[in-house]
Every structure is written in C-alpha cells, then in structure tokens.
C-alpha cells in the first residue's frame, strides 16, 4: 500500500517534470528555427517594399515575386550566372579534391615510407597557422601567375579549394586505419600491386566516407565568401553565389535587395541542408565501421 502511494507521487512528479521538459524543448526549438522562419517569411513577402521591413514578423501578404525577379531580373545582379559559376567550381573541385584526399590518406594509412611521420607533423604545423594569414599572400601569388583576371578566376578558385587536400586527410585517414591490414596482405599474397589494392580493396570499403567527402567538398564553395571575394574583386561576371548575396546586404543595396537576398538565401540553403542530411547518414554509416560482421 505504502509502496503504491510512493510510486504514485514519483509518477506525478515525473509527469510534471515531463511537462516542464517538453515546454522547455518547444521554446528552444522555436528560438532555434526562428531566424529561418523569418528568412522564409521575408522571402515570400508581398507588396512593393524590397528593403528591410521590421513592422511585423510575418508579412501581411505573400507572393513569389522575389524568387521570380531573382532569376529573371539579371541586369544588376545576375543570380543565375552566379549559381552556374559556383556549381562549376564546386563540381570540379569536389571531384579533384576527393581524389587527392583519398590518395594522401591511402599513402599515410597503408603505405610505409620514410617521410610519412615528418609529413604528418608538417601538416599539423601548417594547420596551426590561421588561414587568413596566408590569404593575401596566396592572392599575390595567384596574381603573379595571371590567374586573377577574367576567365582564369574559376581556375584560381578551384586551385584554392583543392590545395588544402594535402593536409585535410584526418577524417579519411582515420577511417582507412580501421580497415584491417590483413585484407591488404591477402591481396599482396595473391600478387596484387599496391595500386590494385587501392582501387579494388580500399576504395570500395571506403564508399560511405567517399560520399561524405564528396558532398562536404561540394558544399565548401557555396559557403566561402571571403576567399572568393578576395580573388574576384570587381569581376562581377565571375562572382559566386555567396559573394552576390553578401553584396546584396551592403549599406547601399540593402534597401532594394533585402527580400531578394532572402529569396536567394532560401534557394541555396534548401539544397545545402538536404545534402547535409545525406552526408550525416553516410557519416554515421562510416562511423559504424568499415568492415562489418
């Protein structure tokens, strides 16, 4: 009897606790998604005001006009072109970058060579320097090579995106380290060369991690607004999406472009968050181990 009573009060206090927790989580969730709700609401705002309108959180009328103007009114801000520029850069650099990362990780994880340890230490030292320190210097170097004008700009951006592959091996190498060495040794016994082992054994086993790597390096150029800005300078024809959006919020353009910024941000945020969700799935799959069973 006494036991029942006690468990009853425990149950009651647990229910109160549950209610408090769920109310708390609801508030947290609202706070966390509020900026995105605001972004979408502003992108869909009707009316003629294209600047910041802080009178109400949710607009009084809705329309798709800003999305339509974003893709059709290309006289000053050529969004479709920026989109295409970014897509080209992202596609090329994710293919090349992924291959380089795979090559470096394979050599550091599976091949024994004299300078392996020194190379990894050097990589660690390099990553300790703030990236922004060498940024201007890299720009001077690219300029000296003639890569910062006209048609060469996308090439310069691709080079910048993939040049970090040499030190960006940690996740992939860590994953390759979990593949049993016995598999490689069995392949050598069967007469396979190291190249064949890499292609036929290591790569297929790394599949989830490769997908993760491809998507992460594909997303990079969409989010980079500093380096791209530094290299493109005033060459508007070669702007990437992020520079274009960044420019829309400048002091002199915000009053005419704010809603279009919101529309553009929604346009790129949706595919990127979908890609992100996909990478998470592959990342988790990868983390659960290379060889199952």
């Amino acid at each position, binding site marked *: 009897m006494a036991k029942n009573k006690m468990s009853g009060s425990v149950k009651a206090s647990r229910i109160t606790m549950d209610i408090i927790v769920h109310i708390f989580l609801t508030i947290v969730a609202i706070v966390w998604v509020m900026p995105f709700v605001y972004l979408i609401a502003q992108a869909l705002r009707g009316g003629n005001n294209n600047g910041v309108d802080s009178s109400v959180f949710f607009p009084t009328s809705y329309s798709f006009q800003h999305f339509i103007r974003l893709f059709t009114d290309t006289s000053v801000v050529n969004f479709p072109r920026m989109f295409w520029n970014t897509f080209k850069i992202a596609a090329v650099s994710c293919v090349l970058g992924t291959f380089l990362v795979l090559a470096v990780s394979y050599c550091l994880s599976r*091949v024994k060579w004299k300078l392996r340890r020194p190379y990894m230490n050097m990589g660690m030292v390099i990553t300790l320097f703030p990236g922004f320190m060498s940024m201007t210097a890299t720009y001077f170097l690219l300029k000296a090579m003639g890569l910062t004008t006209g048609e060469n700009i996308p090439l310069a951006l691709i080079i910048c995106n993939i040049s970090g592959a040499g030190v960006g091996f940690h996740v992939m190498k860590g994953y390759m380290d979990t593949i049993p060495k016995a598999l490689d040794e069995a392949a050598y016994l069967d007469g396979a060369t190291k190249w064949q082992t890499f292609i036929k054994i290591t790569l297929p086993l790394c599949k989830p991690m490769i997908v993760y790597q491809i998507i992460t390096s594909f997303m990079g150029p969409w989010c980079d*607004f500093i380096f791209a800005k530094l290299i493109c300078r005033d060459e508007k024809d070669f702007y990437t999406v992020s520079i274009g959006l960044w420019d829309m919020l400048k002091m002199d353009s915000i009053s005419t472009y704010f809603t279009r910024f919101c529309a553009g941000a929604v346009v790129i945020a949706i595919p990127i968050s979908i890609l992100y969700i996909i990478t998470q799935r592959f990342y988790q799959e990868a983390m659960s181990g290379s060889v199952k069973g």
Partner: protein
Amino acid sequence: MSNQLTKADAARKREKNPNSLLSALKNGGPIVWLSCLIMGLGNFAAGQIIKGLIFLAIEVGMICLLTIPIIPDIAKVPHSGIDWIKMLPSLGDREDGKEVVGNIEVTVFGDRSQMILLYSVIFFAIIVAFIVIWQASVRSGYQALRTKKSGKKAPTFVQDVKSLFDENIHKLMMIVPFILLMVFTVVPLVYMICMAFTNYDSKHQNLFDWVGFDTFALLFESGGSISKQFWSVLGWTIVWAFFATFLNFFLGTFMAMIINRPTTRIKGFWRTMLSFTIAIPQFVSLLIIGQMFALNGIINRMLMDLHWIAEPIKFTDNATNARIFVIVINLWVGIPYTVMQVTGILKNIPADLYEAAKIDGANVVQQFMNITLPYMIFVLTPYIITSFTGNINNFNVIFLLTGGGPFGLEGTAGKTDLLVTWLYRLSVEKFEYNLAAVIGIFTFIILAIISLVTYRSSGSYKDEEGFK
C-alpha cells in the same frame, strides 16, 4: 605489436643506408662524382637513358630559369631568377619617377618590393626543390651503377614506372597534393612570415625594407597604440574562446541529456530542429540574425510592441552589449554541434555502470557526477580542446555579426575583434601587412603551445595504432 614495429623501424634507421648521399659520395668513384655536376650521368653509364635524360633536362631547365630573364617586373622589363634574388637584401630602392618624352610626361616605374620578395621566395622554393631532385639523381645514378657492378641489370624505365604503381606508390600519389600544398600554402606562408620582418604597411606600398624585429617590438612597447590594441584584442580573444567553448559545452550537454531522458518524446524531432543551424550556411543564418537584432530590426520592434523595453536596445553599438551579444548568438551556433557529439557518447556509456550504481543506492545526481560527467570529460577532452582552438580562430561569428565593431576613435581594432578578424582587416582593408603577419605568427604560437601541451600528452599521438 606496434611497439615492436617502432623498435624495428628505429633499428633499421640506425643501420647505415647503403644508398644515402654520403655513401654515394664516399664510394661512388669518378662517374658518380661527375654526376654531381652533370645530372643523370650515373644513369647514362648504367644504361638508364630515359631517366638520365629526365635528370639532365631538369638541370638544363633550372639553369635557364635562373639565368635567362623571363619574369617581367612592373615596367615589363624581364629579369632572371638570379636578378630577383640579388635584389632581395635591399628589396629594391628605385622609386617611381617622371620623365619627359617629347612633350608628354611619362611615369617611369621603379622597383616593387612586394614583387621582389615574392619572386625571391618562389625562386628559393624552386632551388630547394632542385636540391632535392639533385641529391635524388646522384643517389639514383650510384644505385644503378652498383646494381650493374654486381652483375645484375639496372631497372629499365618501364620497370621504374611500374614500381610507381607498387612499392613506390606513395611517390605517385603524393606528388600532386604535395606540390599544391607547397605552392599554394607553404610558399604564401613563408612569404607572409617574411613580411613580418619588413615595414610593408599602408605607408610603404611600393618600396619597403627589412626592419628586423621592429614590428614585433611594437606589440610590447608600453603605452604604444598598437600594443594597447594588441593586448586588448588578445585578452578578448581568450575570454571569448573560454566562454564560447565552455558555455557551449555545458549547455549543449545539458540539452543533450534532456533530449535523451527516457520519457522525452519525439527525440529525433528536437535534434532536427537544432541541426538546422549546422545545415544552413553560416553566412546566411548569421547575416539574417544580424538583421533581426539591428537597431530597427524585428527583435527590438517586437520587444517594444510587448512594452518590455521603452527604446531599442543597441545590441552591437556598445562594447559590453556587443560582446555579450556575440557570445549568446554563438550559443545558438555552437550548442547543436555539442548536442550531436554528446548524444553519441551518452549512448556509449555502458548501461551496467548505471545498474550497479542503482543497486548501490546512488540517486540521479550522484550517477551524473560519478558516472556520466567523468566519462564524458574523458572522452570529450580532445573535442573541447579542438573547439577551444577553433573558437580562437572563429572568424565567421564575429565577422558576420559585428564585423569586429564597435570601433573606438583610434586604431584599427574593434571591441569584439578576435586576432583573426583583426588580422583580416589589417591585411585586406588596411594594407598593414607587416602587422598582420606578426599577429598571424602570434596566433600560431598560441595555438602551437595549446596543441603541443595537449596532443603530446594524449595517448593517440604517442601511439597512433594503439586504439585497436
């Protein structure tokens, strides 16, 4: 297992390498000695014609690069590699001038120290690369001759190429990423480090000189404007990194545990709500947040409509407010990452620990203090350290929310500037390259100390393959 391996490695190292440069020079004989001057000679003598030709071509190319004037300066006059390096000690001293040709005044370009420094650094890098190839060529010739002497045939070119796909695969696979890394990361870094020792600032754009440690001294000069700014930025950087890391960690852990309570419903939903922040590019989300918290932004508007405040709050126009503001917004950015990390770890804590604790009569708080917390601190220490160093370099949050401001009357550093954002402004907007370089070096030193102390003592550094 791994211990034996490292011991074997060390033993092998102690044995003399029969193919080292020293032994090649000692035991090589006239052909090897001559091959120090004419690269590839040893390979020719051993019958490796193509390999020898490649080495010879590299040597000829190198000599051409250094002596034939091919690289034009600002006035389009070409100079050779040696010419550029010769100008390095003085960094050039001809100023731009005017000259009257006929009736028209023409500008005569002088030297550009920045170009001299850049090309010198590039040529030094090329020379270093050449020395590496040179010693490889001498050794390769020596090795081929030894093989020939012992009665066997030196490997043919086809065999050499084949070995690139097998025992020498690292040479094939590392070459491209390594060159990219050297050219586009290491050379710029060396170039920038050199700038720290010059007076390349906004007042010396065309011509600058070596000044030794003068710029470093500026940071320690008592009462100087630069030193005042530097120490205040450094102080704020540390304060920021501390709060950003630990507030995120504790609140994130708290949130993860609330979501993970056995009776919390729709756990996946709450986590998805949080992970929006990670999925959407920061420059989008932070710019929109900046707009929402502006003086005439929606947040101030709503608070005023609710009559909670009488006049708009200046979130970013006042030093204290701005600092609190960036730390709070950083919670919004950072908590989801911690929740992701911690959720996985909470699941991994062995359940029998809790059962044993329950049998011993431990309550929830005791269980947390004695099981959950120690376990998480043990597992998450590397994560905390990485996020601390990451926060020291957290460019996006500061740059997108406050841009480093509010700014004082003097100096270039704002009240919320971190070392990195200040470095960015100094180099990209203010052209104070020498100061930017010095700050970069200081950031490196700080990060290096933190990493050395922590990684060196961690097990994963000492024994890479230990955790298996």
